[in-house]
């Protein structure tokens, strides 16, 4: 329970901050600070059981079938990391209060920060790899938001994008790695996975898993060659740099390596990938840091270097090295966060971060200078600070690898680190450079809320050196034991270990660093001439290549010509169909055919002639429409003849509506356009079309000459009356047996109607509106807009049509008819009103709009379906009852009829929406209120 509270607190803070975003800055600070402090208190209350081996844990089933649980645990490793997150988080919030300007949106800033805090805690506490992955991605997103916090700055946006691309890409690799790992280990549960190291390392997939997971860890922890994002992340406000990009988030990669150490470490693969990358990063980062001039850049590259150090130590694969890494994790968090805050104070006070313009700060800002020197000394590894101990442990571990190269390189890196750290301490505070005076007032020590957090951290950095065993001993020892999955080492942290190779190396590193610093200015041009490894260019190059590749690919498969795409589509269909015909044969079956009556043959001829006529007159648009109407009528006749009266009714109604729609559209399209395609083109298209036609016809012939298989038709027939309460089996099928399908269908119809509205509603403005107005003014036809005869006739027709529709609707369950047809009849009648009497006249007399109808219809249909649930029956189960109405007689009333009413409403709404919008768009454009405001 405590763990749930722990993880819930930051997210609760996010919610509260969003609710109270209009409240004052104090309130925001109070929310974030209180939640962090409460989290820290909860964590401390759990520290004792965690350290004594009674690991607090909680498991809530989430997707039990997939083996994914919401499981949290707080072993010593998680405790160490969570303590870091919450402790530094609290200090950063206090610092941010002093740092952020008066007009900064503190609610937004703090909610991102708390989101990040929650995500980080999630990584630390997750007991399930899927859960961990979710939090892992969340930290990348929070980091993106925080780096880009000052949205108006180009570098901020660019840095945020780069960080997200690199860490997000690494996150993808990590997803693959962890899922593979879980597959091999047979569980998503972290504790189970950690106990199956042998199984995983014996698997042939082990190298793949390792590389993928390392990609995730290295990108997050800014290891070469993925380090480029970290210096660019310095565009973030300094509290963010202190929190995310030095103390916590970048250590998530280190944490992951420590977390998965029992499963992955100990092999040659591990040593040869992790240790060299860490070592290279350590030297590279330190070397670059020495020659930077921006304070934050120095600190950023030094962070890269120190992260490399921790990664290298974990790569060594020994318990002592892990202990050194974890102890350094603490040290680094303390002094680096302090240094970032220190740099922030200096920028705040002097207005610059350029080390060349700063100096003699010790005399002006004594308190700030003291803590800065202290923290920098810890970074340099000077006794008696904690950094000295962890550096000696690092050198000791590198000596223990048995190789000479490793300690030699490690000493070089330590020298460089000490040099940039001493440069930071000496040049800044004692150096002779003039004081940068950018801001009007003289720089001085800042108020307590800016000064206290780094002071606390610097004190911790000192205390970690003076009393390491009391402060960190048990925690580091226990965390090391969990990380290595072994027994406790009997760790002894102390400043004095006696004279050994590590001490000699450590002290000579500091001595060499002093020499180096003395000659730093002389070395600078030399360093500038070194072949530089420009990760930025690498990144930009990769991004450009990706974008161009994607563009080329989409140009390849997506051509501007719809014709060409369709031709390819048709040809593929032909090839596939031909291939199937080749394999299975298309021979006609044995079923007896039905003789055709002379009338049928005549109607068939009508169809063929009309179809050919449409092709022949394709460019005479009105003429083509007339022939389309003929084809539709023939279809209706065919349905009627072939025992499908429902289809015939629907077809006729739809035909009328379709022709009306096209007529309205034609009114707005150019009259008789020139021919576009050349003769060879038309021949080619004709060949494709003929092949398609013959194939389709042949397929139909092959189907119809085979006997029908006994399908589910018998069930529908047998139960239509008994269960569905209707004799019209087609209608019962629609509204009852296959009601769910119909619900889906009317939803599609509703979406189509709304899409049409969305397409035409804005057409009255902009270019489209101007074009519409031009046409309208050129409209020469029909000066008499609404002929009297037409108007009167359609008004008389309306009630009749409504009556017919009602009749069709009510009898639909037993006789041909039903909601679809009834709605179509009503829409035709209403549309005629629009045509005859004008839009405004009709619109003014309408009580319910199309939107309302569509929504109402869907609601009725859904409610009918849900109503069945209320009676304990499955969704859309229908029930039957009989009602005696006066004059009309017995009417079968089924719940399916209510459903049909919903269908009718949606059809009516969608159809009138399409037609009315189309009829209306030109008129609206002509009106002054349709004017384009531009």
């Amino acid at each position: 329970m405590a763990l749930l509270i722990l993880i819930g607190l930051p997210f609760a803070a996010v919610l509260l901050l969003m609710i109270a975003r209009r409240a004052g800055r104090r309130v925001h600070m109070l929310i974030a600070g209180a939640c962090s402090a409460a989290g820290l208190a909860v964590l401390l209350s759990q520290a004792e059981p965690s350290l004594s081996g009674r690991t607090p844990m909680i498991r809530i089933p989430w997707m039990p079938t997939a083996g994914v649980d919401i499981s949290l645990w707080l072993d010593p490793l998680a405790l160490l990391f969570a303590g870091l997150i919450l402790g530094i988080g609290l200090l950063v919030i206090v610092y941010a209060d002093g740092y952020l300007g008066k007009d900064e949106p503190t609610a937004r800033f703090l909610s991102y920060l708390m989101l990040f805090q929650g995500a980080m805690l999630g990584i630390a506490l997750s007991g399930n790899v899927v859960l961990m992955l979710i939090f892992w991605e969340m930290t990348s997103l929070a980091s993106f938001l925080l780096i880009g916090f000052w949205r108006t700055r180009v570098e901020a946006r660019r840095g945020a994008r780069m960080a997200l691309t690199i860490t997000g890409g690494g996150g993808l690799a990590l997803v693959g790695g962890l899922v593979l790992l879980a597959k091999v280990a047979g569980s998503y549960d972290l504790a189970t996975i950690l106990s199956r190291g042998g199984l995983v390392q014996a698997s042939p997939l082990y190298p793949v898993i390792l590389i993928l997971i390392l990609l995730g860890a290295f990108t997050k922890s800014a290891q070469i060659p993925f380090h480029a994002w970290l210096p660019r992340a310095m565009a973030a406000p300094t509290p963010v740099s202190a929190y995310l990009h030095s103390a916590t988030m970048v250590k998530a990669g280190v944490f992951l390596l420590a977390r998965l150490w029992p499963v992955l470490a100990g092999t040659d693969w591990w040593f040869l990938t992790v240790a060299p990358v860490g070592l290279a990063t350590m030297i590279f980062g330190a070397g670059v840091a020495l020659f930077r001039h921006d304070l934050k850049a120095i600190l950023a590259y030094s962070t890269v270097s120190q992260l490399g150090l921790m990664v290298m130590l974990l790569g060594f694969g020994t318990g002592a090295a892990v202990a050194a890494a974890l102890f350094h994790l603490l040290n680094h968090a303390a002094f680096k966060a302090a240094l970032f805050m220190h740099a922030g104070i200096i920028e705040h006070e002097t207005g610059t971060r350029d080390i060349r313009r700063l100096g003699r700060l010790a005399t002006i800002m004594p308190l700030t200078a003291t803590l800065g020197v202290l923290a920098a000394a810890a970074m340099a590894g000077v006794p008696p600070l904690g950094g000295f101990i962890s550096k000696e442990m690092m050198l000791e571990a590198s000596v223990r690898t048995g190789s000479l190269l490793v300690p030699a390189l490690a000493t070089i890196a330590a020298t460089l680190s000490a040099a940039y750290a001493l440069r930071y301490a000496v040049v800044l505070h004692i150096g002779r450079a003039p004081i940068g005076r950018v801001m009007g007032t003289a720089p001085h020590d800042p108020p307590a809320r800016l000064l206290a957090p780094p002071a606390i951290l610097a004190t911790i950095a000192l205390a970690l050196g003076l009393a390491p065993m009391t402060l960190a001993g048990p925690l580091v020892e226990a965390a090391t034991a969990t990380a290595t999955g072994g027994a406790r080492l009997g760790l002894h942290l102390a400043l004095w270990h006696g004279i050994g190779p590590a001490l000699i190396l450590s002290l000579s590193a500091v001595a060499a660093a002093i020499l180096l610093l003395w000659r730093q200015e002389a070395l600078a041009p030399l360093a500038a001439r070194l072949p530089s490894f420009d990760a930025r260019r690498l990144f930009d190059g990769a991004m450009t290549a990706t974008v161009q590749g994607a563009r080329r690919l989409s140009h390849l498969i997506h051509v501007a010509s719809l014709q060409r795409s369709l031709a390819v589509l048709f040809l593929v269909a032909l090839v596939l169909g031909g291939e199937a015909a080749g394999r299975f044969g298309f021979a006609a079956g044995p079923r007896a055919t039905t003789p055709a009556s002379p009338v049928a043959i005549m109607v068939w001829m009508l169809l063929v002639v009309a179809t050919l006529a449409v092709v022949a007159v394709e460019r005479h648009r009105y003429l083509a429409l007339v022939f389309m109407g003929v084809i539709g009528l023939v279809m209706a006749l065919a349905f009627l003849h072939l025992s499908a009266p429902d289809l015939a009714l629907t077809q006729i109604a739809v035909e009328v509506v379709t022709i009306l729609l096209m007529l309205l559209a034609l009114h707005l399209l150019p009259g008789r356009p020139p021919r576009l395609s050349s003769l060879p083109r038309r021949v080619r298209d004709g060949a494709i079309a003929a092949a398609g036609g013959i194939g389709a016809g042949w397929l139909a012939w092959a189907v119809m000459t085979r006997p029908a298989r006994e399908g589910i038709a018998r069930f529908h027939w047998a139960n239509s009356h008994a269960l569905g309460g209707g004799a019209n089996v087609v209608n019962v099928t629609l509204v009852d047996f296959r009601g769910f399908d119909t619900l889906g269908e009317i939803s599609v119809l509703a979406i189509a109607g709304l899409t049409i509205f969305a397409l035409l509603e804005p057409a009255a403005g902009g270019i489209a509106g101007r074009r519409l107005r031009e046409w309208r003014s050129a409209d020469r036809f029909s000066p008499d807009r609404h002929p009297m005869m037409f108007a009167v006739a359609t008004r008389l027709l309306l009630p009749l049509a409504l009556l017919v529709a009602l009749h069709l609707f009510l009898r639909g369950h037993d006789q041909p008819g039903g909601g679809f047809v009834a709605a179509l009849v009503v829409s035709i009648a209403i549309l005629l009103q629009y045509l005859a009497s004008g839009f405004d006249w009709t619109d003014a007399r309408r009580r319910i709009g199309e939107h309302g109808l569509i929504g109402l219809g869907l609601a009725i249909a859904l409610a009918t379906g849900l109503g069945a649930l209320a009676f304990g029956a499955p969704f859309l189960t229908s029930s039957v009852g009989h009602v005696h109405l006066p004059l009309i007689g017995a009417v079968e009333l089924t719940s399916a009829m209510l459903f049909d009413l919903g269908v009718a409403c949606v059809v009516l709404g969608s159809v009138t929406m399409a037609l009315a919008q189309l009829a209306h768009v030109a008129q609206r454009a002509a009106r002054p209120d349709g004017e384009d405001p531009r």
Partner: protein
Amino acid sequence: MSLELLVASAIAVLVAAGLYLALRGRTFQLVLGLTLVSYAVNLFLFATGRLVVERPPLWAKGVTDHADPLPQALVLTAIVISFAMTALTVILSLRGFLEIGSDQVDGLAEPGEGA
């Protein structure tokens, strides 16, 4: 001449005409083509229930010889859906025409040409 042959050949003619029109370079022909193809598809779906003359699927006691109701129900929804699709295509092409001033879909149109 059998009814099956008539229906199959009608499907063939409709598909061929539909495909040809769909390959033209302007929206209106494309819409006509798609409409013809959807007629053919509806007819084909309907024909999978086999052709039965004048025995509509209206239930009555004792009747066992009837048309297959299932393809009919399918085709009924198909007719309405293809109307919705046609309407959407028409409106889409109209809006496109209003915006760019051309009703060509061959990728060659110069903006503003048809205005």
